[in-house]
């Protein structure tokens, strides 16, 4: 569970990290707990408005470089891949954030039925993973045919 602390802003970890770890040790590890800690990390970043200035500058620089490369025929393909990569990363981050928010919201609604909620979360994750695996194997068999 300690690795989840790395998702919190550095200033937050310096201030609350040690006591937060102390509290985590007292809790039973469940999917709900992991979601709650992820939601807390998202919240801490929104609160501190700290998304990592260097990383934002780097993303902006990559995007600008990507745009300039797109306009140059020599680097068109590299620029296109860079843009697609940055967009894909942004979509994945938004998707994860939406899932964490939805799970925390559902937890607030169903907090009295914790075991049922845990079962629903595990079942949902299992369905998503099996769906991804089957679609992967399906496309593989299609390409063979």
């Amino acid at each position: 569970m300690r690795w989840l602390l790395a998702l919190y802003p550095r200033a937050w970890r310096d201030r609350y990290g040690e006591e937060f770890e102390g509290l985590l040790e007292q809790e039973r590890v469940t999917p709900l707990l992991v979601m709650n800690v992820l939601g807390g990390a998202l919240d801490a970043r929104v609160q501190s408005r700290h998304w990592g200035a260097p990383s934002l500058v780097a993303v902006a620089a990559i995007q600008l470089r990507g745009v300039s490369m797109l306009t140059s025929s020599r680097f068109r393909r590299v620029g296109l891949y860079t843009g697609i990569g940055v967009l894909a990363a942004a979509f994945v981050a938004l998707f994860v954030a939406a899932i964490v928010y939805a799970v925390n919201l559902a937890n607030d609604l169903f907090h009295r039925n914790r075991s049922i909620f845990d079962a629903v979360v595990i079942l949902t994750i299992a369905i998503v993973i099996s769906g991804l695996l089957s679609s992967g194997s399906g496309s593989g068999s299609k390409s063979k045919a």
Partner: protein
Amino acid sequence: MRINWTDPESESPTWSDPGLLVLISLAGGSKHGYAMVEDIERFAGHHLGPGTLYGAIARLEKARLIESIEGPPRRRPYRLTAQGVTVLRSHLAKLQAVAGAATVRLEPE
């Protein structure tokens, strides 16, 4: 709904708001994180996860409604500030006014 704890005129929190639960817990004396979780579970029947609890603690500390006091780093205790007591009283008065109105309406005429 996020409460603006630094604005005394802001909308009142609901009974299940983590910030309000933390303030009520600390009104009974200084406590560290785990003691707050246990206390809140006892008086409100609501288990606050670590992410939710420390989100509320960070907000309340930033608004100077609570402060940390000397204690072991892994079990650092918090207490209400004078401003925290005032804000808690103000929010409780508003919530009690709503509860009072509901109670009166439910009484048989």
